[in-house]
């Protein structure tokens, strides 16, 4: 596979992904001659409507769902808000939400707002994680109460790739009549999902994490689940989400889901092997480096490694000099001054939390790229450690 930009080694796929060339190709007619409104009465628009129907079926196929359970949205965040707010409106007498301490801001900040902006009308339980980023199922069980309206737990963590046992958790919620939502933005396309055999009521996904463009997402709503829309407006999406369909992106997402299904095995074999190679070599060559997150219960593409006594932004900028793209849980890479809430929740010491780098691969990565990163990283870390007053190496 030819890289999109040969000077760039892109290992930041949990942030966003390259739009697959096949996806661009599928989208092009809808950005040019097929500009009709899918809601129109004429054939010109009606044909566009047919393409959306096809895309819906392709998304449903990847998730093991029915097409009517798929609602297109603008992004993962919209899907998350829609699911959680719908549950609260469906059961207005219930005032409790169960989530985790390591959610993406899309869920984390919504829950914080539900507590504070409503004057603590809602109560939120945030489940702890252990040093490997895993949940305590006993704590989860005891958190479920008669007052709980919804559980919202991410399927896999965006920073560490750690996978939560959502199938089991959803069943436990269902037994108690509690709705279950999962933010599966990082999971779809990376591990196989079969929603018809699971008790998950809502699932969010985002197009740009699986080689579709930015600005399109999906909320899966299990058949029979009571639902109150978030975006009011026209009758689009069976009245579940108002607003003219983002046709080209929806068609692109359909194609991306088809490709993801085809590449699922490669993702879990070749990509995983590349990730393992990168991780094992870096941990072996660079002293005082450590893996963040569970070794095996993890997405096949993600490696989050801490390099102690150096700061993440400084590492990233040196990597940038070599065209290597990754992310950091360091405070200095974001507007905030505290390091990643995920690593802090896991109890990663400050010495390591500030120096964490997340490598997230995709099917477009090659072994040559991995070897460039393995070759460049030790010198980068060493040069920064030479500057560090804490490094006694």
């Amino acid at each position, binding site marked *: 596979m030819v890289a999109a930009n040969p000077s760039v080694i892109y290992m930041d796929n949990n942030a966003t992904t390259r739009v697959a060339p096949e996806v661009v190709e599928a989208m092009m007619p809808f950005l040019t001659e097929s500009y009709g409104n899918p809601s129109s009465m004429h054939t010109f628009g009606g044909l566009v409507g047919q393409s959306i129907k096809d895309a819906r079926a392709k998304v449903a196929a990847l998730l093991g769902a029915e097409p009517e359970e798929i609602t297109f949205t603008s992004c993962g965040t919209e899907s998350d808000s829609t699911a959680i707010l719908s549950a609260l409106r469906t059961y207005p007498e219930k005032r409790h939400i169960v989530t985790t301490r390591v959610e993406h801001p899309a869920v984390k900040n919504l829950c914080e707002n539900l507590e504070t902006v409503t004057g603590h009308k809602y109560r939120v339980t945030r489940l702890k994680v252990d040093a490997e980023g895993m949940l305590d199922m006993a704590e989860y069980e005891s958190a479920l109460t008669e007052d709980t309206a919804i559980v919202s737990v991410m399927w896999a963590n965006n920073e560490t790739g750690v996978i939560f046992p959502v199938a089991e958790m959803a069943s436990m919620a269902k037994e108690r009549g509690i709705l279950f939502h999962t933010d599966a933005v990082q999971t779809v396309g990376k591990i196989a999902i079969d929603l018809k055999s699971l008790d998950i009521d809502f699932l969010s996904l985002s197009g740009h994490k699986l080689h579709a463009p930015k600005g399109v997402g999906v909320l899966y709503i299990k058949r029979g689940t009571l639902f109150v829309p978030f975006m009011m407006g026209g009758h689009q999406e069976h009245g579940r989400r108002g607003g003219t369909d983002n046709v080209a992106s929806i068609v692109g997402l359909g194609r991306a889901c088809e490709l993801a299904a085809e590449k699922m095995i490669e993702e879990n074999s070749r990509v995983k092997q590349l990730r393992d190679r990168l991780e094992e070599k870096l941990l072996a060559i660079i002293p005082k480096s450590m893996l963040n997150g569970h070794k095996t219960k993890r997405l096949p593409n993600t490696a989050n490694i801490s390099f102690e*006594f150096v700061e993440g932004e400084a590492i990233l900028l040196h990597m940038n000099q070599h065209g290597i793209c990754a992310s950091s849980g360091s405070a200095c890479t974001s507007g905030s001054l505290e390091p990643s809430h995920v690593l802090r929740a896991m109890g990663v010491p400050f010495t390591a939390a500030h120096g964490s780098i997340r490598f997230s691969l995709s099917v477009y990565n090659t072994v040559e790229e991995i070897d460039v990163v393995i070759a460049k990283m030790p010198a980068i870390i060493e040069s920064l450690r030479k500057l560090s007053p*804490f490094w006694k190496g």
Partner: protein
Amino acid sequence: MWEYTDKVQEHFLTPQNVGEIDRPSGTGDVGSLACGDALKLTLKIDKNDIITDAKFKTFGCASAIASSSVLTEMVKGMAVDEAAKITNEDIAQALGGLPKEKMHCSVMGREALEAAIADYRGLKLPKAEGEVVCECFGVTDLEIIRAVKESSLRSIEEITNFTKAGGGCGKCEDKLRKILQDTVSGKSEIFIPQVFPPKKMTSLQKIKKIEEVLEREIRPGLKKDGGDIELIDVDGDFVIVALRGTCKSCSKSQTTIKEYVEKKLREFVLPSLIVEEDN
């Protein structure tokens, strides 16, 4: 992605005067690992009060490293009195400017310089005075007032960018607003610190103190038995530690934590502390 000037890039990628001066005339040690940036500045000063050499070691982001590097270049050859007048704005200017969220990096440079000069002159640091306003980063009212005046700050966001105050839990926002109002309106000259609740330990002071007590009171005992202890995190009154070496597998580890570590920390640091083992 931050927009860094060429000058920042240059000083970050090829920092000048890295290291520590042997037997320095003055040392300035500011920041900490917990804060995410730290700077150790060492100065060599001759008998005419001229700074003949300056070296730095910095843990932090690109702006922190660049600020430290350019600072050493600025002060070399300067009289101590002149160097004492350098402000964080001067440091930022020498770099062709810093993104506003990164101005605290230049403040760290000025603080280290101040500390090193105070150390050389055998003076007490002005930083230790004042009431702590931001407990997350241990920032005092005097530091905030100074930043507001020196850099003409006009919003809480700017205060955070320059001093870090308010960048953690955000609980001090109301206090910051009051300081800002009072300082801008000129009331800060008669600033009355009593408006703040009684002195509490900042998270940083707490962490530092806990580390000291672990080192002095607890580690020696554990090491005798081939064990060790590591501080993992401090969250409010919760102190998370990990036992190492033989302690790790010891069946009595829970007793060690509660009866020995917790008792000592309560005695020497704060009576409200709760020690837990990291697992």
